[in-house]
């Protein structure tokens, strides 16, 4: 059984390494600031004992006040998992750092999230639409897109 790590405990570890980056944490998920996402992800990937080497899933959600990007991190080595989230509040130009350089698994999901929700992943090697065609206007998975 994949052990879902207690996110509160992991949040404490993150806070120790980078004070002030954790926005919220409960048993299920850690939410960090979007500016710190990359270094937190790097920390989770490379810290012995955590070793999140596998990106299980990645999704963006539009909560109208803010966008949330959800990362499901898995460690194949230890068989445990963690849900990492980040939020961005700017609707005009939501920016989240890209984690493709850490997990190449994020290459397509980041392009898809950009395509359908309009979240810009800074540092992505080739950020362009994935499912819709070039020249398509708008981002259909936003709640205000009809």
């Amino acid at each position, binding site marked *: 059984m994949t052990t879902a790590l207690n996110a509160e405990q992991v949040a404490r570890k993150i806070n120790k390494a980078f004070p002030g980056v954790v926005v919220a944490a409960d048993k299920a998920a850690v939410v960090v600031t979007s500016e710190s996402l990359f270094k937190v992800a790097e920390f989770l990937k490379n810290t012995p004992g955590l070793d999140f080497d*596998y990106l*299980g*899933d990645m*999704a963006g959600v539009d909560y109208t006040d803010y966008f949330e990007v959800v990362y*499901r991190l898995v460690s194949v080595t230890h068989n445990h998992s963690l849900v990492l989230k980040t939020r961005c509040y700017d609707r005009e130009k939501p920016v989240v750092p890209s984690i493709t350089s850490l997990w190449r*698994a994020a290459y397509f999901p980041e392009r898809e999230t950009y395509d359908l929700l309009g979240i810009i992943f800074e540092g992505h090697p080739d950020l362009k639409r994935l499912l*819709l065609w070039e020249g398509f206007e708008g981002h*259909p998975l936003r709640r205000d897109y009809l």
Partner: protein
Amino acid sequence: MVIKTEPFILNIGPQHPSTHGVFRMKVTLDGEVVVDVEPVIGYLHRGIEKMGENRTYTQIIPLTDRLDYLASLTNNLAYVLAVEKLADIKVPERAEYLRIIMAEAMRISSHLMAVGFFLNDLGAMMTPVLYMWREREKLLDLFEMVCGQRLTYNYMRIGGVSHDIPEEFLPALKKFVAEMPRFLDEYDQLLATNEIVLVRAKGVGVLPKKTAINIAASGPVLRASGVKWDTRKADPYSIYDRFDFDIPVGSSGDNYDRYWVRMQEMRQSVRILEQAIGQLPNGEVIADVPQLLRPPVGEAYGHIEAPKGELGFYLVSDNSIAPYRFHIHPPTLINLTALKDMAVGWKIADLIITFGSIDVVLGEIDR
């Protein structure tokens, strides 16, 4: 005299027999050697995630049929598991067993297609496919007995399955389970040591273990690279912890290993089917679930080991009758990230079989 050469860009697809659907590969070639591959997708995009936001939880089940349409039942299963997690619904024992029987039969059916078309891509035009279809046909007949459909089954329900199996189902399934190992032996006899298969597939399209984990490959693609990771064992869902089966693992991560892993997995699925038939209890097949389900506010992620890899559904509920967010984690799209690693440096003919060895279905990639 030195002949001047330059790289050449070739579009394979979107309409091309070797792309298994409407898929385009933008290939940069140096003579016959592949320098770069860029997958271009979206030709079959139907906006299933957006459609899901405007349908009730039950109405979404037929949409999931149309993702990986060669393995509809496992799509159903992954989705209903996610909803059951979200709304905390218990499933009757008999329904759990029926789900396992359907999922494993589906895995065999999907792998038969995968292996058959892999050989098609190798140049064994249609003959191996017809051998594989001989067995797949029996499975389709079985599915048809249960739900009247041969492609989009829409069989699983939130809290169970739509209805019980008919009387003639179990005898037919038992016959299939008894015969299948012999047919698998026959395939092995024809293919496993076939010189053409070995020469074309061994050592070609290698995906190293480290890369396979980093790109989050799953299913046979991951296991062929030597990673013993199967969601049925790593994170058992439904009642998979009650069955005894092995996870076949490849060693080199080449095209042959991906073919070999699928062949072995079919044997393991037959083992699971045997055990499930033996243990099948009597009783209800669906729990008492409200017709218009309103799960509590929250989110859930349900994932299973689909034939092609890890299929997940991420659902966010706002306590209304439709999900606030309906996200699909498609295994083959993620596996496609590895195509470039596997194909660069090989000839264009090897690109075709490497692509075939991933076993893609465009319904799932484009959604």
